[in-house]
């Protein structure tokens, strides 16, 4: 379903973020990408989302090179992918409810669907009582849960989760991981980038390990080894 083919990304001043990385992810898989900070995890996710262009190599989603997609076709690709950004990236001018509703508006969901689904998802991430708050009024953990709600609500085919538990307490970390596992069981492909050892070891799923931008290990039912 997703294919990274000899991907290299060099930023200005010859900083190599990703160095000749190749791997494939099948549909409905749950893959974790682990590595220290700066190992290139986030860069890989940005490249898949076509937020950045690779210096070399190709990324295919269903045999379509994502960097050859015309700008006007790009929204269609991105609507297939739900992203939990490491830095949340909430819309600061919109409240919690509107942030989550926005992605449904983008895909053209009806008002009825929006007013039905948004409260449900906010209930799941335990933010129903914060629906009218703006992101600057939320704690880091709450913002992270809004980001999670926003990524889940359009029921995307793929979820990219970049450190989704980075700001969560152990209780919420467990809840979020259970949620991602359940969604994966229902057929959604999940790509999780994290450096949380415990999370990885509890999952018992495929683990890709990056070190200084290079892929050093790719294990089925892997563990966090660095």
């Amino acid at each position: 379903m997703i294919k990274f083919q000899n991907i290299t990304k060099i930023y200005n001043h010859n900083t190599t973020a990703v160095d000749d990385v190749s791997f494939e992810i099948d549909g409905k898989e749950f893959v974790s990408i682990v590595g220290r900070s700066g190992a290139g995890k986030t860069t890989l996710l940005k490249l898949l989302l076509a937020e950045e262009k690779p210096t070399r190599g190709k990324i295919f989603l269903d045999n379509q090179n994502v960097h050859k997609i015309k700008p006007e076709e790009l929204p269609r690709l991105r609507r297939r992918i739900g992203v939990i950004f490491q830095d949340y990236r909430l819309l600061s001018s919109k409240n919690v409810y509107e942030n989550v509703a926005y992605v449904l508006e983008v895909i053209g969901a009806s008002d009825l669907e929006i007013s039905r689904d948004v409260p449900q998802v906010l209930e799941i991430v335990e933010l129903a009582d914060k629906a009218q708050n703006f992101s600057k009024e939320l704690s880091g953990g709450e913002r992270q849960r809004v980001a999670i709600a926003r990524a889940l609500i359009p029921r995307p085919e793929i979820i990219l989760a970049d450190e989704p538990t980075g700001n969560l307490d152990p209780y919420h970390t467990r809840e979020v991981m259970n949620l991602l596992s359940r969604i994966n069981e229902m057929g959604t492909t999940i790509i999780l980038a994290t450096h949380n050892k415990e999370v990885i070891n509890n999952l018992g799923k495929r683990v890709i390990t990056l070190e200084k931008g290079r892929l050093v290990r790719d294990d089925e039912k892997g563990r966090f080894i660095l």
Partner: protein
Amino acid sequence: MLVALKRIIHSGWLSFRRQTALSFATVSIMMMAIFLITSLFLLQGMTKFLIADLQDKVDISVYFKKDSSEEDILRVKAELSENPEIKNVAYVSREEALEKFIERHKEDQILIESLAEVGENPLLASLNIKAWQASQYTAISIFLEKGPYQELIEKVDYYRNKEVIGRIFEISSNINLAGIIFSLILGFIAIVVAFNTTRLAIYNSREEISIMRLVGASSWFVRGPFIVQGVIVGVIATLLTVLVFTIGVFFFSSRIDLFIPGFSLFGYFKAHFFTLLFIQLATGVGLGVISSWIAVRKYLKV
């Protein structure tokens, strides 16, 4: 499609309402731009009136010999009237000339007495000719002095006034040109200021624009609310400026009348109200929409 449009409009309105300080800033800057353009429009009206008034005072007079019959003079008048370069021709008979002379000098006893002494009307019948352009007066006087009617004509008082006539037309065309240049410069400044204010406002939202793109919003879905905001700013700024001008013009009209007798600013404002409203709306909404469009486009490349 309709649902998307409804959401875009709603979102634009919501952002306008929530960002109170920013909206206030953009509306007031836009008001200044519209205010300036409206002022220039009214100033242009005043200048035109002044120039027309000034040019209207310029004419040349042809005096006919005492023995010329009124019939002949009217024939000359008819022929001159057909000339497209001539604005109008007015006939002043000997009797009318005398009446005007007496009326004008009724205070001057000595002059009136000496007139009585002469016994008969010493004044000549004349035609007052007004041309559209100062440059045409030379041709008209040559035609009168050298043409078929030269036998009837005593004199043409053009050469005496030639310089003054030239100067008046020169000054009025200079005023007109200066007005146009002044308007263009000020209009340009107003547009640049309003445009950059909108750009700065949208610069604030560049992060939001990229997030919207990353969650799959189409360019239109991102751009739409900003354009709606531009329209709202333009409409509100226009309405407020119209209000300010209606009140201002109503109260100041009588004072303007003291400077420019015969010109009613309020009358001019009323007569051109809808043209003005159209110009104001076009300025406000046009500027709002175009500057939002351009400013957002830059950040859409995500």
